[in-house]
Protein backbone atom coordinates (compact mmCIF):
# COMPACT_ATOMS: atom_id res chain seq x y z
CA UNK A 1 0.00 0.00 0.00
CA UNK A 2 2.80 2.38 0.96
CA UNK A 3 4.55 1.63 -2.28
CA UNK A 4 1.44 2.42 -4.22
CA UNK A 5 1.02 5.76 -2.51
CA UNK A 6 4.62 6.74 -3.17
CA UNK A 7 4.30 5.74 -6.80
CA UNK A 8 1.12 7.72 -7.08
CA UNK A 9 2.74 10.71 -5.37
CA UNK A 10 5.71 10.51 -7.72
CA UNK A 11 3.46 10.40 -10.76
CA UNK A 12 1.55 13.39 -9.42
CA UNK A 13 4.82 15.20 -8.79
CA UNK A 14 6.11 14.71 -12.31
CA UNK A 15 2.78 15.87 -13.63
CA UNK A 16 2.99 19.11 -11.64
CA UNK A 17 6.61 19.60 -12.54
CA UNK A 18 5.72 19.26 -16.19
CA UNK A 19 2.81 21.67 -15.95
CA UNK A 20 4.95 24.37 -14.36
CA UNK A 21 8.19 24.00 -16.28
CA UNK A 22 6.71 24.36 -19.70
CA UNK A 23 9.48 25.85 -21.76
CA UNK A 24 8.38 29.11 -23.30
CA UNK A 25 10.37 31.84 -25.00
CA UNK A 26 10.71 33.75 -21.74
CA UNK A 27 14.30 34.64 -22.45
CA UNK A 28 13.35 36.23 -25.72
CA UNK A 29 10.97 38.52 -23.88
CA UNK A 30 13.47 39.36 -21.15
CA UNK A 31 16.29 40.43 -23.46
CA UNK A 32 13.90 42.21 -25.80
CA UNK A 33 14.74 40.19 -28.91
CA UNK A 34 11.03 39.57 -29.38
CA UNK A 35 10.80 43.22 -30.52
CA UNK A 36 13.14 42.38 -33.39
CA UNK A 37 10.67 39.75 -34.56
CA UNK A 38 7.80 42.23 -34.21
CA UNK A 39 9.76 44.82 -36.20
CA UNK A 40 10.34 42.33 -39.01
CA UNK A 41 6.75 41.13 -39.32
CA UNK A 42 5.41 44.68 -39.03
CA UNK A 43 7.70 45.73 -41.89
CA UNK A 44 6.36 42.94 -44.05
CA UNK A 45 2.79 43.86 -43.13
CA UNK A 46 3.50 47.54 -43.90
CA UNK A 47 4.92 46.60 -47.29
CA UNK A 48 1.90 44.52 -48.20
CA UNK A 49 -0.54 47.21 -46.99
CA UNK A 50 1.31 49.95 -48.92
CA UNK A 51 1.07 47.77 -52.02
CA UNK A 52 -2.69 47.43 -51.50
CA UNK A 53 -3.09 51.19 -50.96
CA UNK A 54 -1.16 51.98 -54.16
CA UNK A 55 -3.27 49.48 -56.07
CA UNK A 56 -6.45 51.03 -54.62
CA UNK A 57 -5.32 54.54 -55.68
CA UNK A 58 -4.43 53.38 -59.19
CA UNK A 59 -7.80 51.71 -59.68
CA UNK A 60 -9.59 54.83 -58.36
CA UNK A 61 -7.69 56.93 -60.90
CA UNK A 62 -8.66 54.59 -63.72
CA UNK A 63 -12.29 54.70 -62.60
CA UNK A 64 -12.25 58.53 -62.72
CA UNK A 65 -10.60 58.68 -66.13
CA UNK A 66 -13.25 56.84 -68.04
Amino acid at each position, binding site marked *: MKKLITIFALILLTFFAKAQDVKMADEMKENGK*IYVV*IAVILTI*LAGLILYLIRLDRKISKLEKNK
Partner: protein
Amino acid sequence: MRKSWWKILGVLLLVYTFIAGLLIEVPRNPQLQETIRNLFFHVCMWFGMMILFIVSFVRAIMYLRTNKHIHDIASRQYAGVGILFGVLGYLTGAIWMSYTWIDSNKSIFNSFDTIAREPKLIGAAIALLVYAAYLVLRDSIQDIDKRARISAVYNIFAFAMLFPSIWIIPRLLDSLHPGGSEGNPALDPGSASPNMRLVFYPAIAGWTLIGVWIATLKIRMKILYEQKLSQ
Protein backbone atom coordinates in the same frame (compact mmCIF):
# COMPACT_ATOMS: atom_id res chain seq x y z
CA MET B 1 -11.37 58.78 -47.32
CA ARG B 2 -14.65 58.62 -45.43
CA LYS B 3 -15.64 55.57 -47.36
CA SER B 4 -12.43 53.73 -46.57
CA TRP B 5 -12.68 53.79 -42.76
CA TRP B 6 -13.05 50.02 -42.70
CA LYS B 7 -9.81 49.56 -44.59
CA ILE B 8 -8.00 51.67 -42.00
CA LEU B 9 -9.74 49.73 -39.23
CA GLY B 10 -8.62 46.45 -40.80
CA VAL B 11 -5.00 47.62 -41.00
CA LEU B 12 -5.06 48.89 -37.40
CA LEU B 13 -6.52 45.61 -36.16
CA LEU B 14 -3.79 43.69 -37.97
CA VAL B 15 -1.04 45.89 -36.54
CA TYR B 16 -2.56 45.29 -33.10
CA THR B 17 -2.67 41.55 -33.82
CA PHE B 18 0.97 41.43 -34.86
CA ILE B 19 2.17 43.36 -31.79
CA ALA B 20 -0.15 42.06 -29.06
CA GLY B 21 -0.21 38.59 -30.58
CA LEU B 22 3.49 38.17 -29.87
CA LEU B 23 3.64 40.02 -26.56
CA ILE B 24 0.64 38.95 -24.46
CA GLU B 25 0.85 36.25 -21.83
CA VAL B 26 -0.46 32.97 -23.23
CA PRO B 27 -1.37 29.77 -21.38
CA ARG B 28 1.63 27.50 -20.79
CA ASN B 29 0.59 24.42 -22.68
CA PRO B 30 3.31 21.71 -22.68
CA GLN B 31 2.40 20.50 -26.15
CA LEU B 32 1.97 23.80 -27.93
CA GLN B 33 4.31 26.11 -25.98
CA GLU B 34 4.74 29.38 -27.88
CA THR B 35 3.11 28.00 -31.01
CA ILE B 36 -0.24 28.61 -29.34
CA ARG B 37 0.11 32.14 -30.76
CA ASN B 38 -0.59 30.67 -34.17
CA LEU B 39 -4.23 30.95 -33.14
CA PHE B 40 -4.09 34.60 -34.20
CA PHE B 41 -2.91 33.72 -37.68
CA HIS B 42 -3.73 30.16 -38.73
CA VAL B 43 -7.25 30.01 -37.26
CA CYS B 44 -8.08 33.51 -38.54
CA MET B 45 -7.33 32.34 -42.09
CA TRP B 46 -10.14 29.79 -41.79
CA PHE B 47 -12.53 32.29 -40.24
CA GLY B 48 -11.73 34.74 -43.03
CA MET B 49 -12.30 32.00 -45.60
CA MET B 50 -15.70 31.11 -44.15
CA ILE B 51 -16.86 34.73 -44.08
CA LEU B 52 -15.66 35.35 -47.64
CA PHE B 53 -17.41 32.19 -48.84
CA ILE B 54 -20.63 33.36 -47.13
CA VAL B 55 -20.37 36.71 -48.97
CA SER B 56 -19.72 34.86 -52.23
CA PHE B 57 -22.78 32.67 -51.60
CA VAL B 58 -25.00 35.69 -50.89
CA ARG B 59 -23.82 37.45 -54.06
CA ALA B 60 -24.54 34.26 -56.06
CA ILE B 61 -28.13 34.27 -54.78
CA MET B 62 -28.40 37.98 -55.54
CA TYR B 63 -27.27 37.31 -59.10
CA LEU B 64 -29.91 34.62 -59.58
CA ARG B 65 -32.61 36.95 -58.22
CA THR B 66 -31.66 40.10 -60.14
CA ASN B 67 -29.57 38.89 -63.11
CA LYS B 68 -27.22 41.82 -62.55
CA HIS B 69 -23.73 41.10 -63.87
CA ILE B 70 -22.02 42.91 -60.98
CA HIS B 71 -23.17 40.25 -58.50
CA ASP B 72 -21.68 37.54 -60.67
CA ILE B 73 -18.29 39.29 -60.74
CA ALA B 74 -18.41 39.89 -56.98
CA SER B 75 -19.36 36.30 -56.24
CA ARG B 76 -16.41 35.01 -58.28
CA GLN B 77 -13.86 37.37 -56.69
CA TYR B 78 -14.98 36.73 -53.11
CA ALA B 79 -14.73 33.00 -53.73
CA GLY B 80 -11.23 33.53 -55.18
CA VAL B 81 -9.95 35.37 -52.11
CA GLY B 82 -11.71 32.82 -49.89
CA ILE B 83 -9.77 30.03 -51.59
CA LEU B 84 -6.55 32.00 -51.12
CA PHE B 85 -7.27 32.27 -47.39
CA GLY B 86 -8.12 28.57 -47.24
CA VAL B 87 -4.87 27.58 -48.94
CA LEU B 88 -2.93 29.82 -46.55
CA GLY B 89 -4.78 28.20 -43.64
CA TYR B 90 -3.85 24.78 -44.95
CA LEU B 91 -0.18 25.69 -45.43
CA THR B 92 0.15 27.32 -42.01
CA GLY B 93 -1.60 24.29 -40.50
CA ALA B 94 0.90 21.99 -42.19
CA ILE B 95 3.80 23.92 -40.67
CA TRP B 96 2.17 24.04 -37.24
CA MET B 97 1.32 20.34 -37.11
CA SER B 98 4.79 19.23 -38.16
CA TYR B 99 6.07 20.68 -34.86
CA THR B 100 3.24 19.76 -32.51
CA TRP B 101 1.66 16.58 -33.85
CA ILE B 102 4.71 14.62 -35.00
CA ASP B 103 5.26 11.69 -32.64
CA SER B 104 8.94 11.73 -31.72
CA ASN B 105 8.86 7.99 -31.00
CA LYS B 106 7.94 7.18 -34.57
CA SER B 107 9.49 8.00 -37.89
CA ILE B 108 8.16 11.06 -39.67
CA PHE B 109 6.55 8.81 -42.25
CA ASN B 110 4.63 6.87 -39.59
CA SER B 111 3.56 10.05 -37.83
CA PHE B 112 2.29 11.38 -41.11
CA ASP B 113 0.29 8.20 -41.50
CA THR B 114 -1.87 9.18 -38.51
CA ILE B 115 -1.96 12.86 -39.40
CA ALA B 116 -3.21 12.13 -42.90
CA ARG B 117 -6.28 10.46 -41.38
CA GLU B 118 -7.30 13.62 -39.55
CA PRO B 119 -10.97 14.30 -40.36
CA LYS B 120 -10.39 18.06 -40.16
CA LEU B 121 -7.69 17.96 -42.83
CA ILE B 122 -9.71 15.73 -45.13
CA GLY B 123 -12.84 17.86 -44.67
CA ALA B 124 -10.98 21.09 -45.37
CA ALA B 125 -9.35 19.52 -48.42
CA ILE B 126 -12.76 18.46 -49.75
CA ALA B 127 -14.16 21.96 -49.21
CA LEU B 128 -11.23 23.60 -50.98
CA LEU B 129 -11.37 21.15 -53.89
CA VAL B 130 -15.11 21.78 -54.31
CA TYR B 131 -14.36 25.50 -54.56
CA ALA B 132 -11.44 24.86 -56.90
CA ALA B 133 -13.88 22.99 -59.14
CA TYR B 134 -16.03 26.14 -59.09
CA LEU B 135 -13.22 28.09 -60.76
CA VAL B 136 -12.63 25.33 -63.31
CA LEU B 137 -16.32 25.04 -64.16
CA ARG B 138 -16.69 28.79 -64.46
CA ASP B 139 -13.76 29.36 -66.76
CA SER B 140 -14.76 26.49 -69.04
CA ILE B 141 -17.97 28.21 -70.17
CA GLN B 142 -17.68 30.84 -72.90
CA ASP B 143 -21.15 32.35 -72.90
CA ILE B 144 -21.30 35.13 -70.28
CA ASP B 145 -24.90 34.67 -69.11
CA LYS B 146 -24.69 30.92 -69.07
CA ARG B 147 -21.41 31.07 -67.18
CA ALA B 148 -22.88 33.45 -64.59
CA ARG B 149 -25.99 31.35 -64.02
CA ILE B 150 -24.31 27.94 -63.87
CA SER B 151 -21.50 29.17 -61.63
CA ALA B 152 -23.97 30.89 -59.29
CA VAL B 153 -25.92 27.66 -58.91
CA TYR B 154 -22.69 25.69 -58.39
CA ASN B 155 -21.56 28.27 -55.82
CA ILE B 156 -24.68 27.56 -53.76
CA PHE B 157 -23.92 23.85 -53.96
CA ALA B 158 -20.30 24.43 -52.95
CA PHE B 159 -21.44 26.48 -49.97
CA ALA B 160 -23.82 23.70 -48.95
CA MET B 161 -20.85 21.30 -49.08
CA LEU B 162 -19.08 23.40 -46.44
CA PHE B 163 -21.61 22.25 -43.84
CA PRO B 164 -20.81 18.53 -43.83
CA SER B 165 -17.16 18.84 -44.82
CA ILE B 166 -15.94 21.42 -42.31
CA TRP B 167 -18.72 22.14 -39.86
CA ILE B 168 -20.35 18.79 -39.10
CA ILE B 169 -18.29 15.67 -39.84
CA PRO B 170 -14.97 16.85 -38.32
CA ARG B 171 -16.86 17.87 -35.17
CA LEU B 172 -18.28 14.38 -34.73
CA LEU B 173 -15.03 12.46 -35.05
CA ASP B 174 -12.10 12.29 -32.68
CA SER B 175 -9.10 14.22 -33.84
CA LEU B 176 -5.76 15.63 -32.75
CA HIS B 177 -7.03 18.96 -33.99
CA PRO B 178 -8.91 21.06 -31.40
CA GLY B 179 -12.56 21.80 -32.07
CA GLY B 180 -13.64 18.19 -32.55
CA SER B 181 -15.93 16.13 -30.40
CA GLU B 182 -14.62 17.82 -27.23
CA GLY B 183 -16.11 21.19 -28.07
CA ASN B 184 -15.25 24.37 -29.89
CA PRO B 185 -12.28 26.19 -28.33
CA ALA B 186 -12.42 29.02 -30.84
CA LEU B 187 -15.94 30.20 -30.08
CA ASP B 188 -16.67 28.78 -26.62
CA PRO B 189 -15.98 31.65 -24.19
CA GLY B 190 -14.99 29.17 -21.46
CA SER B 191 -12.25 27.51 -23.51
CA ALA B 192 -9.64 29.99 -24.72
CA SER B 193 -7.97 32.11 -22.05
CA PRO B 194 -9.47 35.62 -21.74
CA ASN B 195 -6.10 37.09 -22.68
CA MET B 196 -6.05 35.23 -25.96
CA ARG B 197 -9.59 36.14 -26.82
CA LEU B 198 -8.58 39.79 -26.43
CA VAL B 199 -6.37 39.37 -29.50
CA PHE B 200 -8.18 36.54 -31.27
CA TYR B 201 -11.46 38.31 -32.06
CA PRO B 202 -9.84 41.54 -33.34
CA ALA B 203 -7.50 39.34 -35.39
CA ILE B 204 -10.44 37.62 -37.10
CA ALA B 205 -11.98 41.01 -37.90
CA GLY B 206 -8.68 42.41 -39.17
CA TRP B 207 -7.83 39.51 -41.47
CA THR B 208 -11.38 39.38 -42.80
CA LEU B 209 -11.41 43.11 -43.56
CA ILE B 210 -8.12 42.76 -45.46
CA GLY B 211 -9.63 39.86 -47.41
CA VAL B 212 -12.69 41.94 -48.28
CA TRP B 213 -10.43 44.82 -49.34
CA ILE B 214 -8.48 42.58 -51.73
CA ALA B 215 -11.74 41.21 -53.10
CA THR B 216 -13.19 44.70 -53.73
CA LEU B 217 -9.98 45.70 -55.55
CA LYS B 218 -10.27 42.63 -57.77
CA ILE B 219 -13.95 43.34 -58.44
CA ARG B 220 -13.21 46.95 -59.45
CA MET B 221 -10.36 45.78 -61.68
CA LYS B 222 -12.60 43.21 -63.35
CA ILE B 223 -15.30 45.82 -63.99
CA LEU B 224 -12.75 48.20 -65.57
CA TYR B 225 -11.45 45.34 -67.70
CA GLU B 226 -14.90 44.43 -68.97
CA GLN B 227 -15.75 48.06 -69.72
CA LYS B 228 -12.57 48.29 -71.75
CA LEU B 229 -13.53 45.14 -73.66
CA SER B 230 -17.01 46.43 -74.50
CA GLN B 231 -15.75 49.79 -75.79
